[in-house]
C-alpha cells in the first residue's frame, strides 16, 4: 500500500523543480548583438548591447556563463522588498506573502550563477533563507491543524518548492483520513477519492486545493 501511494503521489526532485523554474522569464542586459531567437515557447530578443530584454532563466544563465550578459535581479529580490516580505511573513500567522511561484529556485539559480549582478548579495541571501524558513515553518504549523474531518487543504501563495515538500505527506494523510472516515473496505475506491488538488498543484498552480 505504501509503495502504491508513493507512486501515486509522485514527488518531483529539487532538480526537476528547478528545471521547470528555468522557464520563468527574467530580464538581462546583453553585451552582445544577436538576432531574435525563435524558440518553441516564443521569440526572444533581438539582443542589443546595454538594452534590457526578457528571456527564460535558462537562457539567461547560459549567456551569463559565457559572459554575454548581466542578469537584472527581479524586483522582488531587492533588500527592501525582501525585508518587507519577511516582516509581513512574520506578522501574519496564517497568510503567505505573494512571491513568485518559483522564488526559491530562481533565487538559488541567481545566487549560483549571477553573484556579481545582485547588489548586497549577502543580505539578499540571508533574507531569502529567513523567508524560506519562516514559510516552511508556517506550512508545518498549519498542517498541524489537521483532524479527522479535514478532507482538503487550501493554502494560498504557496511556492512550487513548498508544495513539493508537503505534497506527499498531505496527500497521503488526506487519503488516510478519507479512508478512515468512509470506512469502506474496498481498496478500489482509493484512486477515485484521491484529492484532485494535488494534481493541480503538480501542474503548476499556486493553490494546493483539495475538493
Amino acid at each position, binding site marked *: 500500500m505504501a509503495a502504491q501511494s508513493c507512486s501515486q503521489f509522485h514527488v518531483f526532485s529539487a532538480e526537476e523543480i528547478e528545471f521547470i523554474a528555468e522557464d520563468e522569464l527574467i530580464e538581462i*542586459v546583453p553585451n552582445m548583438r544577436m538576432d531574435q531567437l525563435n524558440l518553441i515557447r516564443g521569440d526572444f530578443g533581438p539582443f542589443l548591447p*546595454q538594452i534590457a530584454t526578457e528571456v527564460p532563466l535558462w537562457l539567461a544563465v547560459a549567456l551569463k556563463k559565457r559572459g554575454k550578459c548581466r542578469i537584472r535581479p527581479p524586483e522582488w529580490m531587492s533588500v527592501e522588498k525582501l525585508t518587507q516580505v519577511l516582516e509581513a511573513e512574520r506578522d501574519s500567522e496564517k497568510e503567505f506573502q505573494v512571491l513568485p511561484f518559483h522564488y526559491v529556485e530562481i533565487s538559488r539559480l541567481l545566487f549560483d550563477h549571477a553573484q556579481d549582478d545582485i547588489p548586497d548579495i549577502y543580505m539578499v541571501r540571508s533574507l531569502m533563507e529567513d523567508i524560506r524558513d519562516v514559510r516552511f515553518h508556517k506550512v508545518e504549523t498549519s498542517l498541524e491543524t489537521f483532524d479527522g474531518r479535514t478532507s482538503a487543504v487550501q493554502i494560498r501563495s504557496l511556492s512550487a518548492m513548498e508544495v513539493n515538500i508537503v505534497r506527499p505527506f498531505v496527500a497521503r494523510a488526506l487519503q488516510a483520513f478519507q479512508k478512515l472516515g468512509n470506512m469502506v473496505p474496498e481498496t478500489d475506491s482509493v484512486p477515485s477519492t484521491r484529492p484532485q488538488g494535488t494534481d493541480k498543484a503538480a501542474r503548476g498552480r499556486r493553490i494546493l486545493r483539495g475538493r
Partner: protein
Amino acid sequence: MKVRTLKLREAHKPASNGSPSFCSVLWDQQAHHLVTASSSDSAISIHDSLLPSQAPKILRHHRDGVTALAISPNSTCLASGSVDHSVKLYKFPSGEFETNITRFTLPIRALAFNKSGTMLAAAGDDEGIKLINTIDGSIARVLKGHKGSVIGLAFDPNGEYLASVDSMGTVIYWELQLGTTLHMLRGVAPNTGTDCSVMNVLSWSPDGEMLAVPGLRNDVVMYDRDTAEKLFSLRGDHLQPVCFLSWSPNGKYMATSSLDRQVLIWDVEKKQDIDRQKFDESICSMAWKPIGNALGVIDAMGKYGIWESVIPSSMKSPTEGISNSQSKNSNGLVFFEEEEKEEEPGPSGSLSDVGEDSFGESPPSRKRLRKQSVTEEFWEDDDAFEEISLPSKLKAQKTAATKHKEGPDKVKECVRNVTSLERPKMQDAFQPGSTPAQPGKRRFLCYNMVGSITTIEHEGYSHIEVDFHDTGRGPRVPSMTDHFGFTMASLNENGSVFANPCKGEKSLSTLMYRPFCTWANNSEWSMRFEGEEVKAVALGTGWVAAITSLHFLRIFTEGGLQRHVLSLDGPVVTASGFRDQLAIVSHASDCLPSNDQVLEYRVFNISNSTQLLKGRLPLSPGSHLTWLGFSEEGLLSFYDSKGVLRVFTSQFGGSWVPLFSSNKAKKSDENHWVVGLNAGNFFCITCKKPDLFPQVMPKPILSILDFSFPLASSDLGADTLENEFMLNSMRLSQILEQMEEMTRAGLDASSLDDDAYSIETAQDKCILRLIASCCNSDKLVRATELVKLLSFANSVRGAIKLVTALKLPNLAERFNTILEERLLKEKGEKDATVTVNAKTDKYTARDVLGSKASPAPIIPSASPHLSAPPLVKKAKLQDAAAPDKDNGVKVDAEDVNKSGEVNNDKLVEAKKAGKDAAEAKSKTHRPFNPFSKTKDDHEKGKSVAGAENQPLQRPSNPFLKSKIK
C-alpha cells in the same frame, strides 16, 4: 624636572650583533591596536592595546627586516616596506595579506599614506619616490630629486604637498598635482649618513600649516607650509640630534626623541618643553594615541611601551579640540578646494569645470537671491508710488526680480547643471554624453551607442577606461593612466579622441587620438595647442575635429595629418560627428534676457569639404542644450534641458521636429539622459529625479522609448493613433527623400522600397483605425480627409466597407467619389508617363488589355452621381513588369470569371450601401452594379483587371490602373 621611568616590553628581537635597528610603532585610528616592526625582524606585530598581555598578531610576509610602516587614515589598510625591497599591503586589523603593491630595487625606508588613503608614497635607497594608487596598485608618479636615500615622507594634511627628507638632510616640498619640486632645502636636517637605525622624520602639523623637521642644532625647526620659510625652532635639552618627532593629535604638543635617549614633550605654542623621559636606548619611533593621553614608543632594541598620561592633567589634553581643529581643518580644506576651483579660469570651462563651477557658485547665488528678494519687498511696499513715478524701467527690473524669486527651486534643479541661474549666462562648452566631475567618483567622458569612456581622478592623476557595449565586437582597450587630465573625449568604432583644457601656464591643451586597431604600431598621436584651448572634440570616419577657444575648427585625419583649419562664428557649445558629417553648435550671440540661449548649428561634410546645413537651433524657452548627436540614419538631433528631443527634417525647407518631451512621458519622476536614436525610437538612460545624469556604477541600462509628438489633446480621444499617424508620415517622407537622393546619385534605391511599402501599409492601417474613431465620434469631415491620405486604393475600399458597416452611407458615397477621382487621376498620370516613357510597349499592351476589357469610356463628370462602388483596378508595377504581363492577363481573366461569385458577400454589403444612396439621390441610375473586387497585391506586382459584363447606362467603368513606382 622629575624623571619618570617607563617599563618597556620586548616586541621584536634586537639585531643579533646587538647593534641598534630601526623600529617603528603606529596606532590605529580607534587606538585599539598598536603596530610595531623592526628593521632586524621580518615580522610585524599587531598588539591589542586593550589586552596587552595577549600575544600579538604576527604578520610574517617579508623576507627581511621591516623598515617602514604606514596605516591608512581610516585604519582599514596597513602598508609595510622592508629591506627585501617590497611594499606590501594588508587588511587591517585582520592582518590579511592583500598584495605586493610595489617593488624597489633597494630597501624601502619610508612610507606614507595621504589623508584620503587613496595614495601611498614609498621611498628608500632607490632613486625616486613612488606614488602608488592604493586602489589598483598603479604607479601614479615617480618623484625624482633626492640625492641620498629618502628616509622620511609626509603628506600634507590638505593633500597638496608631499614633503620628503633624505639621509643627506635635504628636505623637498613636492607639488602633488604636477609632481614638481616646490622648494628644496639643502642640508637643513642632520646628515645621518649610512646609519640605518636612525631615521630622519619630518611631519606636518595636523592643521597643515607648518612642517617640523629635525634641525642641525639638536632642535626641531618649523617651516612654513607654502613658502618653506623657517618659522621657529624648538630648542632645549636635547644633547644630540633629534631623530624622531611626533605631533599630538591636536597639534598643541610635540614629542621628540633624540639620539641622547631622551624623549621630550613640547608645548609648541610656548616653544617650551614640558616633560621628558630618559630611556635605556634611543627611541626610534613614537606615536600619539589618537584617543586619550598616551604615547606609544619603541626603542632601537625593539622594545615598546605605552607612556600613559604624558601631558600633565593641569594642561590641556593632547586630543582636546581635536574635533574642532579637525572640522576647522576640513572646512579649511573645502574652502580651499572651492577657491582652487574658482581659480580655474571660468571660461575655460570644459564640462568638469562647469559642474564644479556651479557647485562652487550656488551658495553665493543663493545669497544674492536673498538680497534680491529683500529689494523686491522694498519695491512692493512702494509699489503704488513707484508705478506712478518710474513706470517702465523699474517694472522691467521688477519682473526680473520676480523671476529670481522662483530661483531657489531652479537652483536646486540646476545646481548640477550647466545653466545659468541669475543673469542669463551663455552656456559653456560640453561633450555630448559626458557627465560632470564628481569628487571621488568615476564619471563618463563619453557615453554613446558604441561604448563609454570613463575616468576617475586620484590625487591629480586620472585613470581612463574605454568599454564597448558590445564586448564581442569591440576590441579590448587597455585602461590608461592619464597624465594630462583629459576632460573631453569622443568615441566611435575606430578610435577615441581625448583632450584636456589648459591648466595654468605649464600644461598646454592637448589633443590625443588613439585608434583601436591599426596595422601600424604606435599610431596614436597627440597635438598641443599653445595659447589656445580645446573646447570640444568630435570624431568621424577617418577624421578628428577639435574646436578651440580661438573659435578654430581644426580637422585632422585619422593618421594625424592637419587637414583643415576653419574659423567659426562664435564660441563653440558642442560638436558631434557621424561618418562624414560634423555638426557644430556655437553661440550666435549673448543670451536673450529671457534666458534663452542663442545657438547656431552648422553641419559639414568633411570628406567633400562642404557645408550641408546652417541655422539657428530651436531650443525650448529658457533651456540649454544638453545633447547633440546623429541618429543611426544620420539625422541630426538634439536634446535640451527641458527634456525635448528634436530631430532635423528636410521638410519645410529644413526644420526641427520635436519628437519627445520628457514632461509628457508616462513616468514624471524620471529624467531622461539621451544616448542615441534611430528611425523609430530613441535610447536613453532614465535617472530617478533629481538626478540629471547616470553614475558609472552601477552600469547604466539603456531604455528604448518611442517618439511622441507633443500633440494637442484632441477631441478625438485617439492620441496614440494620431501620434502614430504623424510618425509614419514623417518616416515615409524621410524614406522617400532618401530614395530620391539615392536615385539622384545613381544608386539603386530599390532596397528602400520594402521599407517604404511596409510603412505605407502600416500608415494605411493606422488611418483606417483613425477613420473608425472619427466615425465613432462623428467627425465625418476629418474622416474624408483621412481617406484622401490613404496610399493604396484597396485601403480606400476597406474604408468604404468600414463606413458601410458603421451605417454611414453618406460617407460611403463620398469615399466612393474620392476613390474614383483618385483612380482617374492616377490613370491620367499613368497615361502621361506612358506616353513619355520610352518603354511604352509594356504599358501600352496593358492599356490595350484594359481598354479591351472595358471599352466604355470613362466619364468623370458623372462621378458625383455615382451610386455604387466602381470597378477598380490597381496594379503596382515594379521595375520589371514584363514577366507579369502574361500572368496579369491570366489573372485578369480569372478575376473576370470569378468576380461574380468571389465577391458575393462583399457585393451585398456594398450593394446595400449603394442602394440607399441611390435612392436618396436619384432613381435614374440602377442601384445595382456589378463590379469586380480585386485583390491588390503589391509585392507580386500582380495586375488584376476587372472586366465585367457591363450594364447599360453605367457611368462608371472598370479600368486598369498601373502605378509605377
